[in-house]
């Protein structure tokens, strides 16, 4: 099938007008609505980060007041985690691609899908209201008893926003699980599923099992703060450390909500840019499930110096080290996939390689923190800040942007300028490393996080970090610019610009509302590039390089 030969209009052309979007049940349109919303929040969160990095140019707290600085890092975390990272890949690329990749016309519950977007927006309105009514200063972690009895900022409003948004994530996860179980096309067996689907299946499990716990935790803070129930307040017999257990029971697995979908994207991209079957498909698939399940048992590694029992710490530490293994397995498999591949040097490859580099560092530095004796020194320093930014910004956002570039032709019917795709990937990679690598050094030196002012010895590294943030911001802004500009050009994307396998590349770009002109039947494994060699393609023979 090629572009322009269809009778049905594409999903972008079929009914027009604002209400046809706001009341749409089309998973692709909802995916686009999410893409726009999360981009807006990414920009807002980025502005907060700009404020933070500007303040940290000098050791004295001279650019912002301490209170304003505290609010900025709180809002940066809340917005980036709950309103950007968690929905970033699942609600945009996941929404768009899951039904298509399994050969379905839509998700199992299209109305619930639309509802989840509205819930997200309502949650966002609450949190933004908290911003405009003076902000909140508890840190995105909302630790008690500061959040429940001491802070005099808009904790209730901001927490309510997070609470509400959680339901959108639960509904999305629920929708994905049912869809993947029930809506697969004939012949699409579990082990023919693209790894993007496996990753989202694992992510959805975490969403529906973990999110209710953070919702309850937030309600408990609300009950203590607004209604005077003593739960975490030690003066009334409450336990402030209990909050940390409840919070991290969700928030550690939430890290996997952010990175697993990115791993799914990268599996797709590695196979496509190498035109090769993923090395060890089933190991990559199962490692997603292993990460999701074991990830629920490691939360106490955030609490080695919290007064948690040292024996409990022992258990959390060993399981943390174990959960590192499936991530290592994935990385080795991606690398091996490129071996004797037919590796393109088009822009998606730049994003994949960038992801690999940053995710490697992010993952490996987790080992330092999971090691108890070392974590005593590193806990709550910039080492931790650098580590999780390497995972979430270096890993998840690189994968997200790689995915957006790779699927942009499919989503919009437009190609972006190739050179721009490469330049921005390099800018983001360089800017990112310049921003966050110095923070590892700062962390080992002992600079604590959430510091508005700091000793002069730390200045040079902080200046480097701020300079890097400038480059990083430039890279992100460039992407928004050329992707949006491409929308004003003609639709020039072929159905399969990358020569990739997968049902999504067999339909026109952009797809029709019901995705497929006729119901697809699946007869081969995912990433069957070698099987294509017969159709005029050149297969690399063993030994031929």
């Amino acid at each position, binding site marked *: 099938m090629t572009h322009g030969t269809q009778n049905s209009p594409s999903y972008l052309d079929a009914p027009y007008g604002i209400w046809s979007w706001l009341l749409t049940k089309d998973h692709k349109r909802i995916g686009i609505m999410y893409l726009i919303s999360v981009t807006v929040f990414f920009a807002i969160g980025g502005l907060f980060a700009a404020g933070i990095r500007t303040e940290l140019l000098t050791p004295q707290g001279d650019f912002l007041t301490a209170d304003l600085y*505290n609010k900025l890092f709180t809002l940066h975390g809340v917005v980036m985690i709950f309103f950007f990272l968690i929905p970033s890949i699942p609600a945009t690329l996941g929404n768009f691609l899951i039904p298509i990749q399994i050969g379905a016309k839509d998700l199992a519950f299209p109305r619930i899908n639309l509802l989840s977007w509205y819930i997200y927006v309502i949650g966002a309105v609450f949190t933004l209201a908290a911003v405009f009514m003076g902000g909140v200063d508890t840190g995105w972690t909302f630790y008690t008893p500061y959040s429940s009895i001491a802070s005099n900022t808009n904790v209730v409003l901001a927490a309510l926003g997070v609470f509400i948004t959680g339901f959108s994530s639960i509904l999305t996860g629920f929708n994905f699980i049912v869809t993947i179980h029930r809506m697969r096309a004939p012949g699409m067996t579990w082990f023919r599923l693209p790894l993007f689907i496996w990753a989202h299946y694992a992510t959805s499990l975490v969403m529906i099992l973990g999110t209710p716990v953070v919702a309850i935790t937030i309600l408990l803070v609300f009950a203590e703060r607004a209604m005077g129930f003593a739960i975490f307040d030690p003066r009334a*017999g409450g336990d*402030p450390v209990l909050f940390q257990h409840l919070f991290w029971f969700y928030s550690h697995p939430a890290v996997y909500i952010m990175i697993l979908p990115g791993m799914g994207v990268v599996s797709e991209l590695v196979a496509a840019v190498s035109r090769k079957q993923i090395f*060890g498909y089933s190991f990559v698939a199962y490692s997603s499930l292993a990460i999701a399940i074991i990830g629920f048992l490691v939360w106490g590694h955030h609490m080695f110096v919290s007064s948690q029992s040292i024996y409990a710490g022992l258990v959390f530490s060993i399981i943390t080290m174990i959960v590192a293994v499936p991530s290592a397995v994935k990385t080795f498999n991606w690398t091996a996939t490129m071996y004797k591949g037919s590796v393109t040097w088009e822009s998606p490859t730049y994003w994949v390689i960038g992801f690999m580099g940053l995710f490697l560092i992010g993952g490996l530095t987790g080992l*330092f923190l999971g*090691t108890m004796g*070392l974590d005593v020194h590193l806990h709550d320093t910039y080492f931790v800040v650098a580590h999780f930014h390497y995972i979430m910004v270096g890993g998840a956002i690189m994968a997200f942007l790689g995915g957006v570039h790779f699927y942009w032709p499919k989503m919009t019917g437009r190609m972006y300028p190739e050179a721009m795709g490469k330049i921005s990937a390099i800018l983001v990679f360089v800017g990112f490393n310049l921003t966050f690598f110095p923070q590892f050094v700062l962390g080992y030196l002992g600079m604590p996080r959430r510091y508005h002012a700091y000793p002069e010895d730390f200045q040079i590294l902080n200046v480097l970090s701020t300079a890097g943030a400038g480059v990083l911001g430039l890279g992100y802004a460039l992407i928004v610019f050329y992707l949006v500009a491409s929308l004003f050009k003609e639709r020039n994307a072929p159905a399969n610009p990358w020569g990739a396998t997968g049902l999504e590349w067999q339909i026109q770009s952009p797809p029709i509302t019901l995705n497929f002109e006729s119901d697809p039947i699946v007869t081969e494994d995912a990433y069957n590039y*070698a099987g294509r060699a017969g159709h005029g393609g050149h297969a690399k023979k063993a030994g031929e390089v």
Partner: protein
Amino acid sequence: MSSFPLFPEAASSIAHEVDLLYFFILAVCSFFAVLVSALVVFFAVKFRRRHPDEVGADIHGSIALELLWTVIPFALAMAMFVWGADLYFRIARPPADSMEVFVVGKQWMWKVQHPDGVREINELHVPINRNIKITLGSEDVLHDYYIPAFRVKMDAVPGKLTTMWFRATKAGTYQIFCAEYCGTNHSGMIGRVIAMEEHDYEAWLAGGRSTGTAVENGERLFTDLACITCHKSDTTGRGPVLAGVFGNPVRLMDGRTVVADENYLRESIVNPQAKVVLGYQPIMPTFQGTVSEENLMQLIAYIKTLKAAPPAAPTGGQ
């Protein structure tokens, strides 16, 4: 800009051990980071696409390789775990012969009380080559007492006492940070450790204004707060005898047995109904709010000194 250090000073007995583990993990991680990055770039170049229709070789995987790259990372991760856990246990458990200093965090300062009663704020003077145990409390929210040059930190948790310890090995002045976010002036909740030669420390102590040792203050509070009217030295009081209670098991009304450590004593003062000793009525009033965190520490210091009377037998007669 005064200086541009890239590595922190190591000034405690544990610091070099922490650094050693750090370098071990750094070496392992650097090896894998370089290996994988090099392979990715090498494969991307060597196996670059030379023809637009070209596809990769028909390779699906290898069980042997999967096993290899599961087992090796697992083994290395376990080595890190064991090393880290062993080190952690040594960091977390103060040696029995430690000199005990009380530190209370409150928004936004550190209040320090030495065993002989000398107090200071935000600074901590200690002798080098002596094990120092810090008993930490908080008067309001979470804080964290962090001394990077010693590679130790511990949360100060309101509602309980936590401990940390170190042995300074080099005289000098070292930074103290609050490492747990605690509100507006969190980054101002800093101070310094002044580690001194033993005789300098003695001289410093002698020059300090002591308002009585922690135990003396505790003893005075014990009378002032009328604890003494119920907790008598013999069993005639309405409350349990406290002599010899510290460090020993206590049987509770609900059938449990707990060890009377610092946290048990603290809880029994601020929340007496939580764990009532078997055979006594739950009649003790709470001292929540009436006794400051520092006074609590003094009371506990005093109670810890109350030794059980030797068996009465050999005294003979009345």
